[in-house]
């Protein structure tokens, strides 16, 4: 059944008549055109659809949209501010952490939530922090390097 819903996404209000069974992933992509959040497995196993809900990384394919109304939702489109890339995005580009780029938005959002929680992580903690996001191209090493460098930069900038 369609109902009127309102979301706060990347600091802006999005509204629509939305079926109560739709997932956050479907609503982001189909209702609001936020295509940077990718649908991989649609079952919570690959992490490609990761977004932040109140700062926490979630698989948006596993979350009903209706339930996250009123919460702060951040997608990859909301990470760069004033046309300036977020340090995590820059370090992903520089380290070669991006190959095909399909897992990238989810991976970056996971890294963001992870570094917000743990700004000075060990390499093991980074590996653990990223293990819910699958990447078939890179073998993860350059992603780990990017997150390590981003952490250093964010600590300096903080």
């Amino acid at each position, binding site marked *: 059944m369609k109902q009127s819903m309102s979301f706060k996404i990347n600091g802006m209000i999005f509204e629509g008549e939305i079926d109560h069974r739709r997932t956050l992933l479907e609503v982001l992509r189909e209702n609001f055109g936020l295509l940077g959040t990718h649908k991989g497995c649609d*079952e919570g*196993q690959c992490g490609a659809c990761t977004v932040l809900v109140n700062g926490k990384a979630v698989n948006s394919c596993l979350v009903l949209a209706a339930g996250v109304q009123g919460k702060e939702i951040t997608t990859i489109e909301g990470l760069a501010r004033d046309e300036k890339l977020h340090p995590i995005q820059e370090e992903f580009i520089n380290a070669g952490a991006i190959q095909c780029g399909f897992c990238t938005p989810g991976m970056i959002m996971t890294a963001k939530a992870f570094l917000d929680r743990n700004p000075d992580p060990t390499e093991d903690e980074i590996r653990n922090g990223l293990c819910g*996001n699958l990447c078939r191209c*890179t073998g993860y090493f350059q992603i780990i390097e990017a997150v390590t460098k981003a952490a250093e930069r964010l600590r300096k900038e903080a």
Partner: protein
Amino acid sequence: MKEEFSNIGKAIPKVDGVLKATGKAAFGADTSLPGMLHGKILRSTVAHAKILNIDVSAALQLPGVKAVITGKDFPWGTKFGFSSQYRDQAPLAQDKVRYIGDELAAVAAVDEDIAEEALDLIKVDYEILSAVFDPFEAMKEGAPLIHETNPNNICAEAHIEFGDVEKGFRESDLVREDEFHTQAVKHGFIEPHAALALWEPSGNVTIWANKQSPYVASRKMAMALGLKPSQLRLVQTYIGGGFGSARSDPHALDFCAVMLSKKTGRPVKIVYTMEDVLVMGEMRHPFHMKVKTGMMKDGTLKAMQIYAVLDGGAFTSIGPITLGLAALSTDLPLRIPNVKYDAVRAFTNKGHCGSLRGHGVPQIRWALGQQLDMMCNELGLDMAEVSIKNAVHTGDITPRGLKIQSCGLTECIEKVVAASGWKEKRGKLPPYRGIGMSTGSYYTGVRISGHNSASCIIRMNEDGTASVQTGATDIGQGSSTVIAQIVAEVLGLRMQDIAINSGVDTDFTPLDPGTYGSRVTFYSGNAAKLAAEDAKRQLAEIAGNLFEAKPEDIIFMNRKVYPENNPEKAMKIDALIRHAGQKMSTDNKTIWGRANYDYDLPYMDFKTGKGNASVAYAFGADVVEVEVDPDTGKITVLSSVGAHDVGKVLNLTNCVGQVNGSWIMCQGQAMFEHLIRDSADGHVLNANFMDYKLPTAMDIPRKVEHILVESIDPNGPFGAKEAGEGASVGWLHAFGNAVADAVGERFYDLPITPEKVLRAIKNKQGETGAQSK
């Protein structure tokens, strides 16, 4: 003297990095058109059956359903495939279904949910046939025939023989015979297949799809749809991972999007679920191998015999090529005078197999590389020394006719031995720690038959920039970046001065067969280099007139152009381009650099396997160190060190990324991945990423190190060879050797799971009654 480059060899970020990091790169499912319908595909629920009738009437009555199609909606009897001899796939099943998952029908509806609901309303009447799932059973007399055209379910065979193997074995001090097996693994890309098609009233059709070899896919599609190639335009989107034929071939969704668009007059999009992707055909061939090797006491290789049975699944796909490519492992990377190679690919009632990173070679190396380790151990020899002793060298022509024009194999082995501590660690590690090594070689573009050449067009712009159109497909490996680097290097420009097309459009971009066989850097890179040189030559002629100098003496550097001995006369390149294109005379000229590249290699004899298969061969050597937990059987990869002869590093970041990715795909096959099937009906039991386990960031080696060896190939662009697949060739057996060293027992099939390790440890303890290895 070392040549100085402004950007070749540097760690230059990807040209599409910002788009991808900000979520703005449009992938397959991101493309939409006004009035678009959504499609879904119905798959067979039985392994082998005649289709008696498909009743779609109830589905058509569901509100929101706009069309339903079956095999009858496509040209009856028209099949597609990679060559005329092997065309056996239809857009949708026509006469019968051949595996659980085979595509039968498709629905277009106003949304995906309705389309999916409509699938349940389609009624299929089958006449069940007996099915066969094991390739050895399939080849027996009386086995059910999957294709009536192929007796004994034999899809294809390959036989290669040189020297005299029997004599070679007689002359050997040690002869070993072993059997090895590999399993079915999937490409494992994270982006499912997607297609959006628009049939226009003119009869022309456009399809937007995530294809890594768009020209291959569009030709096959036109063939099966009964269209002229020019009537079908394929526009490639960004691609969420490729790795092989799953992204090169057209699939049911591509054909059905087109046909449903024709039927409804509206654009139709079909996006597969991950379950679709894992259930459908396209995966790495499982190999069943008997290998026999003869060696002298000093480690000299004398003879090798291989018998391989490939489990092909229900269709041919590219399988006959797999049989041929796998034979690379016979006389590369080690010299061997006597070889007999017999391989057969059998049809079974399962999803079909195709090409996947390394295409057949990792499987054979898994067997041969482990057997070599076993023989070295038996003779008390060091595998590194034996590998160096038998290594091929630049200038070799192998007995089969492979011509080695650049080879850094010996250097790779020496460097990986030094960097890994192989000499210090081998035989001296504590219990349940092990070390193993490997060598490998891979083609840089395969020359077996068909279209291989690449082309490129470069337009010089009035502001001093260059617009590059390549036919190459960047699937994440970074070809767009490398091609831009090559053009910038030749023309003395910066990376930001180069614009390059982000995808192939078969109506407009230069022709190029696509991304496979590790051909792109070499072929498309050479085409780009030649096209840039063509543009440079034209500009140099004009500059020569202006400077009263010879065109060949004009230097292009830092966006300036000047005569070799007179840099103070330098003119900005944008001024030169404007001078050429905008002067008020009849000889004004827009500068277009154009080139086509192919290497003049005679076709190899497909029947005998004799001749040269590739213009250049990459080489490598890996050392892997593992630790095994004797209580749980869990394996931890402590380190992986590799030396890779890539010819010349064009982009350091990309190069390292390619070998990293290649290794970790292999680690998945070595330790976790296995497409498991029900033994009674062959259906896939683990069609999701929870049960089909790709490696995660937690699973990868604790440490990696890459040594990039530059052998400077005489024909490669700036000397470059391939880097993305060769690294996959050795890892499986380096790992196998390391685990055998740690456990003291050999593993003959994949993946090496904790259960298998525990069983082996128990067996070992039963034998020796001791705790240590």
